[in-house]
């Protein structure tokens, strides 16, 4: 198992390096100059040239790329042009906020989405099933930031119940989490519904029912665990989606996470910030995929057996 994890972690390295090259190249072609933003209106052309030289922006593409990659290998993501601070330490500082938002969102989606899916599966094709499926699809069709704005109007402005922005206790995360998860509820509920439907008809569930076990126990103890694997896949991919979604949600709620850092970075052409943020997110993303795979193994002994076998073989 540990060797499997190690192997997966090693596989991440070339991907992350290519991501770094890709993003560096994209940023290289982004029109606009960070120095002109920093220096403002009063700078003379000579002063601009001097500042460009200072940041190494006058060097050719390949040299800049090489320097950047060398830095990354040493876990140095460079220094923000605008804030003067190390990108790596800033990312480290901001990451917990983004992670909290994304994790709470996926938690919320699971806690709400799976029961909806189960209910729909139990009452498949009845009216309640159709209504729930329609409602989740409605959520899936809503722009998250729009819902966010409406939630702020209702809960912060009109009712004064929840804070409208910033970070702090758990209450600060309620509105952002709801806005960030609404789009994923449909996917999870739908996946749960369809895999539950398959399982409910399987022999062992029928047997469990025949034994006279209470329906609740049948569903939660016998059916659900066996329906989980495809649901976990969806959760994994939605978690990645939510990490991305935080970019917009963070900007609505002024949450100083990685997403806002990146958007500010793009707007001010603060290349090290943008590159660092994306590589960081890619790393987390890959990590989550790994965890998803490990959860599979945990849930499904057959897959676990495979890992063990492959390790033995190797």
């Amino acid at each position, binding site marked *: 198992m540990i060797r499997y994890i190690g192997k997966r972690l090693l596989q991440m390295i*070339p*991907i*992350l390096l*290519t*991501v770094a090259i*890709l*993003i560096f190249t*994209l*940023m290289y*072609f*982004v*029109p606009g100059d960070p120095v002109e933003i920093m220096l403002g209106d009063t700078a003379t052309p000579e002063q601009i040239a001097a500042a460009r030289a200072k940041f190494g922006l006058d060097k050719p593409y390949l040299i800049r790329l090489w320097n950047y990659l060398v830095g990354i290998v040493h876990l140095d993501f460079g220094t923000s042009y605008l804030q003067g601070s190390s990108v790596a330490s800033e990312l480290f500082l901001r990451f917990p906020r983004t992670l909290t938002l994304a994790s709470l969102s996926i938690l919320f989606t699971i806690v709400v989405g799976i029961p909806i899916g189960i209910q729909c599966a139990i009452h*498949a*094709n009845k009216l309640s099933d159709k209504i729930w499926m*329609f409602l989740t*699809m*409605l959520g*899936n*069709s*809503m*722009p*998250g*930031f*729009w819902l966010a*704005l*409406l939630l702020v*109007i209702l809960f912060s*402005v009109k009712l004064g119940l929840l804070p409208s922005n910033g970070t702090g206790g758990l209450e600060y995360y309620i509105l952002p989490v709801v806005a960030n998860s609404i*789009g994923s509820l449909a996917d999870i509920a739908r996946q749960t519904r*369809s895999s539950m*439907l*398959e399982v409910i*008809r399987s022999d062992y569930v029928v047997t469990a029912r025949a034994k006279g076990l209470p329906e609740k126990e049948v569903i939660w103890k016998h059916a659900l665990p066996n329906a989980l694997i495809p649901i976990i896949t969806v959760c994994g991919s939605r978690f*990645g*989606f939510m*990490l*991305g*979604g935080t*970019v*917009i949600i963070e*900007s609505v709620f002024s949450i100083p996470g990685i997403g806002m850092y*990146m*958007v500010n970075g*793009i*707007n001010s052409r603060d290349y090290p910030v*943008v590159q660092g943020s*994306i590589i960081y*997110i*890619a790393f987390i*993303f*890959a990590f989550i995929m790994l965890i998803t795979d490990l959860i599979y193994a945990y849930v499904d002994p057959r897959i676990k057996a495979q890992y063990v076998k492959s390790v033995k073989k190797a």
Partner: protein
Amino acid sequence: MEKIKTSSAAKRSGENDKPGSLPYIWRRLKKNPGAMLGLIFVTVLFLLSFVSPFICRYDYQEIVMKSRFTLPCMEHLLGCDEVGRDILSRILYGAKYTLSIGVLSVVVSCILGVILGAVAGYFGGKIDTLIMRFLDVFQAFPNILLAIAISAVLGAGFDKVIYAIGISGIPGFARMMRANILTVRNSEFIEAATSINCSTFRIIVHHVIPNAISPLIVQVAMGIASAALSASGLSFLGFGVQAPTPEWGAMLASARGYMRDYPHMVIIPGLFIMMTVLSFNLVGDAIRDALDPKLRD
């Protein structure tokens, strides 16, 4: 219910009716009221966006300072915005942007994705590895971030949003195409085609792609919905279509500052985005159900 079961059973047994399954999908769609409503909504909206300049009482870009922030009323059914432009006229005129961004960006990702996926899946080997590793990189971080990064390179604007969202959608299509091709590649009729010396290109275009088409249709239908959503998100962040173009996401973004006093300016474009995306979702969903009868049990 029985009827559906038999038809699905028929479908399962007759796996090779896929190319001809378009009429089949259409037949199933017609039976799904949600999908039909969605289809009608989108079609009507699309047509209206072209005739709206001729039938609307107000020009979509006419500024009337005295009717700034008018709430919805008989004069202005959906009210007016911060410079007194009629929101209904703008919504209808702007429909073509949202709809065409959704459709065109999926066309971009579909064409490029299908080509990449088909090539990878058909040839296999090193080409496959190369393409798939490349796509891995594209998929190594969330789609929307890639779209943002690309639109930072391309700049803001209608056509650029299409490319940004289109390109970021390529991996999904490529993977799906490759998976399908892998399943058809080893089937008998391809072997037959190869044995009679059909050119590779011919095999791909005439045999492989048509046989992988139905999952593609599902992906396209669902893709349009999410592309339209992404586009509105990009516009909202300022990377997409720019005001004063009446694209709905851009309208929403510029109305954001007035939302507390004139919520109609925010609610209405959002509602239209939602209804459009919902329509595409309903249609896509119906198609998926039609092609995957398991879900209907």
